[in-house]
C-alpha cells in the first residue's frame, strides 16, 4: 500500500504528525506497535471506585516480576493503570552493569499520551543558546523565536491551563485559565518570594481543559472534572491525549488510516534515489511481515524506539544505521533527574480545606545559573510540588488502634508541603544505547542495550536541589523539614528520555537538521524526544508538539515544491 506519509507511533508527537499532515491534505498511515485502546470505552479502570480494585491498587508479586522496570518508578505498575504500561518481561531490554536506564513504555494507541504528567512548559531563549555558549554537545540549529509561534499554535489546540507569570525563564503562552492554589500554597508562595529574590512559586501549567473552547467541544472534549485519575484514561477527554485530541481531529479529515499491532522493524531505503521509500512492519500477533510505502516518513516511536528503528535500518549507504554518518545515533541520552527535594509540615490554617482533586501542583521555575547566579555546575532545575492535608494513611506512621484512633483518622490531618526537583541532564556521548549483536525479542528484533549514568554535573546540581528545597520550606515556616536525595535512580526515571538522534547544524556531529529531517535522508523526519539537542529542565512534551507541527508544515511545503 502507498500513502503520502507514514507516521510511526501514535503517542504525543505521532498524533500531532498525523493531525497536521492529514489536515494539510495528505493521505496518512499511522502505525502503532501495540494494541488499540479506544477513547472512553477502552479505559477499563477509568470510573472504578477504590473498592472495585481486587488488590486496592497494590502491585501483586507476579506483576512485580513481570513489570521489573516499572517497579523502579514506584507507581507505574500499580493496579489502577498497570495495563497502560508495558510488561517488561515480554519486552525486555539490556543494561550494562552499573550503567542502567529506567525505560518506561506504553505500547498501545495513544502511547504515553494516555499516562503523561501533562505539565506543559516552553523552553526559554537561553535553553537554545546554552550548548553553544558552554561548549556542551552541539548548538541547537533553531532558536526560541523559530519555535515560539508553534508553541502558541499547539497550546491553543491542546488546551494548556496556566497563568501569564511574566518570567523570562519560563515564557508565557496561549493559556486557558489557571487552576487554583490552596491556602497553604498561597502562604508558602508569599513567604518564599519575600525571602528569596528571583524565586517564584507559580501555578503549574498543565494540559487540562479548565474552560474548553467551542472547537474542543466539537472534538468531544469536556472540562476537567478534578477526579485526579488521569493515568487511567479520561472519559471526559479533559486532558490532552492522542485519543481525546489529535486522533479525532485527524480522523475528521477522512485521510487517516490507523493500524495498531504494527511493529516497524526498519525504514526502507532506495540507494539510487538516496531516499526512504517506506517501512517494513511485523504484525505483533501473527508476526506477518508487510511493507508500506510513502513519500515522507515521520518517525515518532518515542526517543529510544525511534533510535532503535534507525539503527536497525541498515543499507550500503548507511551500514551503521540510517542517517548515522556522525556515529551520534544512540548517544547523548538525556532525561530529567529527580527524586530529590524536601517535605515538611505546616502549622496553622487548620480551619481550611479544599474541594476536588487537582491533578496539578505548584511550580518553581529555574533560578540557578540564571541572571547573576553562578554555581559550580551548569544549567538548572525547577520544582514541582504542592500542599495537602494528611489522609488516613498517616495512621501507619503513629502508634495506636481502636475507637479513638479510628475516629481521628476520619478527619483531615496536618498540612504538609513538599517540593521535588526536575534537573537538566547535559549531553554526554558516552551515555548511549546500542543494539545487542545476539539477543533478540520474540519478533526477532535486536534488544536495546543501555549504557548510561548521571555525570558529575548532575550530582553537584542535586546538592542544591535538596538543600534549596529544605531552605525554602524552612523560610516558608514549615516544621519537620525532611530533605531527600535518592541516588539509587537511573537516567530514564523522569520518563523524559531524549537526545539519541539530536538536531544540529552539521551532519558530522548530529542526525537531524533544523527542520527535524535526517541530514542525509531528507524525507525522514523525527520529532520525538530523540531529536532534542539539550534537555532544558522543563517537561518536554509541549516542545515535541511544537517541533512536530513545525516540521509537518515544512514537510508539506517541501513536497509542494517538489523537493521531497
Amino acid at each position, binding site marked *: 500500500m502507498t500513502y503520502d506519509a507514514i507516521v510511526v507511533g501514535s503517542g504525543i508527537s505521532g498524533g500531532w504528525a498525523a493531525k497536521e499532515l492529514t489536515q494539510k491534505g495528505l493521505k496518512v498511515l499511522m502505525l502503532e506497535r501495540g494494541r488499540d485502546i479506544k477513547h472512553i470505552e477502552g479505559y477499563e479502570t477509568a470510573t472504578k471506585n477504590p473498592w472495585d480494585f481486587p488488590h486496592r491498587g497494590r502491585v*501483586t508479586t507476579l506483576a512485580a516480576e513481570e513489570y521489573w522496570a516499572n517497579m523502579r518508578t514506584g507507581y507505574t505498575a500499580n493496579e489502577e493503570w498497570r495495563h497502560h504500561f508495558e510488561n517488561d518481561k515480554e519486552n525486555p531490554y539490556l543494561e550494562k552493569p552499573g550503567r542502567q536506564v529506567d525505560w518506561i513504555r506504553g505500547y498501545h494507541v495513544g502511547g504515553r499520551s494516555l499516562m503523561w504528567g501533562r505539565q506543559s512548559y516552553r523552553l526559554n531563549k537561553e535553553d537554545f543558546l546554552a550548548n553553544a555558549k558552554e561548549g556542551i554537545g552541539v548548538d541547537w540549529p533553531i532558536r526560541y523565536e523559530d519555535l515560539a509561534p508553534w508553541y502558541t499554535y499547539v497550546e491553543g489546540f491542546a488546551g494548556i491551563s496556566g497563568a501569564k507569570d511574566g518570567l523570562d525563564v519560563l515564557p508565557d503562552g496561549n493559556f486557558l485559565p489557571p487552576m487554583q492554589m490552596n491556602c497553604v500554597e498561597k502562604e508558602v508562595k508569599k513567604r518564599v518570594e519575600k525571602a528569596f529574590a528571583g524565586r517564584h512559586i507559580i501555578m503549574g501549567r498543565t494540559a487540562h481543559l479548565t474552560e474548553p473552547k467551542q472547537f474542543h467541544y466539537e472534538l468531544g472534549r469536556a472540562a476537567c472534572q478534578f477526579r485526579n485519575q488521569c493515568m487511567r484514561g479520561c472519559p471526559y477527554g479533559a486532558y490532552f491525549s492522542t485519543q481525546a485530541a489529535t486522533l479525532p481531529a485527524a480522523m475528521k479529515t477522512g485521510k487517516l488510516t490507523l493500524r495498531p499491532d504494527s511493529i516497524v522493524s526498519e525504514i526502507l531505503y532506495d540507494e539510487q534515489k538516496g531516499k526512504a521509500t517506506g517501512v517494513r512492519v511485523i504484525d505483533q500477533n501473527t508476526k506477518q511481515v508487510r511493507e508500506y510505502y510513502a513519500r515522507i516518513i515521520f518517525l515518532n516511536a518515542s526517543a529510544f524506539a525511534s533510535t532503535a528503528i534507525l539503527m536497525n535500518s541498515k543499507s550500503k549507504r548507511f551500514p551503521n544505521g540510517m542517517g548515522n554518518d556522525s556515529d551520534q545515533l544512540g548517544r547523548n541520552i538525556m532525561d530529567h533527574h529527580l527524586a530529590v527535594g524536601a517535605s515538611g509540615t505546616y502549622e496553622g490554617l487548620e480551619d481550611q*480545606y479544599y474541594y476536588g482533586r487537582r491533578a496539578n501542583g505548584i511550580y518553581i521555575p529555574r533560578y540557578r545559573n540564571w541572571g547573576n547566579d553562578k554555581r559550580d555546575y551548569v544549567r538548572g532545575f525547577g520544582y514541582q510540588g504542592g500542599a495537602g492535608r494528611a489522609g488516613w494513611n498517616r495512621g501507619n506512621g503513629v502508634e495506636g488502634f481502636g*475507637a479513638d484512633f*479510628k475516629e481521628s483518622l*476520619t*478527619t483531615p490531618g496536618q498540612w504538609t508541603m513538599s517540593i521535588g526537583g526536575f534537573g537538566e541532564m547535559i549531553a554526554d556521548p558516552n551515555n548511549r544505547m546500542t543494539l545487542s549483536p545476539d539477543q533478540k525479542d520474540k519478533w526477532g528484533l535486536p534488544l536495546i542495550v543501555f549504557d548510561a549514568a548521571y555525570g558529575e554535573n548532575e550530582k553537584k546540581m542535586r546538592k542544591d536541589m535538596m538543600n534549596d528545597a529544605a531552605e525554602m520550606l524552612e523560610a516558608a515556616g514549615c516544621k519537620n523539614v525532611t530533605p531527600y536525595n535518592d541516588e539509587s535512580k537511573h537516567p530514564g526515571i523522569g520518563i523524559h528520555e531524549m537526545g539519541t538522534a539530536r538536531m544540529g547544524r552539521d551532519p558530522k556531529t548530529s542526525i537531524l537538521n533544523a527542520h527535524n529531517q535526517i541530514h542525509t535522508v531528507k524525507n525522514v523526519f523525527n520529532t520525538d524526544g530523540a531529536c532534542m539537542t539539550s534537555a532544558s529542565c522543563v517537561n518536554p512534551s509541549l516542545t515535541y508538539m511544537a517541533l512536530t507541527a513545525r516540521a509537518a508544515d515544512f514537510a508539506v511545503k517541501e513536497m509542494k515544491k517538489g523537493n521531497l
Partner: protein
Amino acid sequence: MNRRDALMRVAALVGTTVSLPALADTLEASAIRRATTGKPVFFTADQDATVAELAETIIPTTKTPGAKAAKVNEIIDILVKDCYKEADQKQFLEGLAQTNKLSQDAYGKAFVQLDPAQRIEIVKKLEADAKQQRADMAKARAQNASGQQDVQMPNEKRKSATPFFTMMKDLTLTGYFTSEIGCTQALEYVAVPGRYEGCVPLKPGQKAWAI
C-alpha cells in the same frame, strides 16, 4: 505448571475470561474465588477468623461500621496471598500463631474467644512487640554501620523484617479505608468532584476526603 498457568486455570474454573495483554490481571482470580466460594484463598478458616477480630480491634465499629462490616479480613486474605513475598507471608502467619499463644497464655483461650477488652490487651502487647522489634533492628543497623556486633542478639533479630503488627495494621487501614464502607461512611467520597476550590473553610465535624 508455572504460576501463571495455575492462575489461568483458576480463572477458567470460576468462569472468567482471560484476555491479552493484562495477563498479570488474572490475579483477579483470588478475589473472584473468595467471592464465589466464600472461603479464604490463603488463610485457614481459623486464621481468617483471627484476622477478622484483629482488624475489628484496630478499627472497631463506632458510630460508623468497623473492619468486620467492611469485610477487611477478605481483602487481607487476598493481599497476603497475591502481594506478599513468601518470607512476609511466613512472618504474617507466625504473627497470627503468636497472637493466639499470647491469648492462651494470658486467658487460656484463642484470640477470637476473648472479649473486646481482653483483645485490646493482647493487641497492646503485639504493638509493643513490634515497637521493640523495630528498635532492635535500628540498633543492629547502627551497630553494623559502626562495625560493632551485639553478640547477645540472635541472628534472627538482626534481619530487617516488617514486624507482624506493622503489617496487620497497614493491611487493616488499607482494607478499611479503601472499602465502600470506609470511603463512604467513615470518610467522605466524591467520585466526580466537578471542580476544584483551593480554600474552603472546614465545616464543624467535616470528614476527610476518601481520596
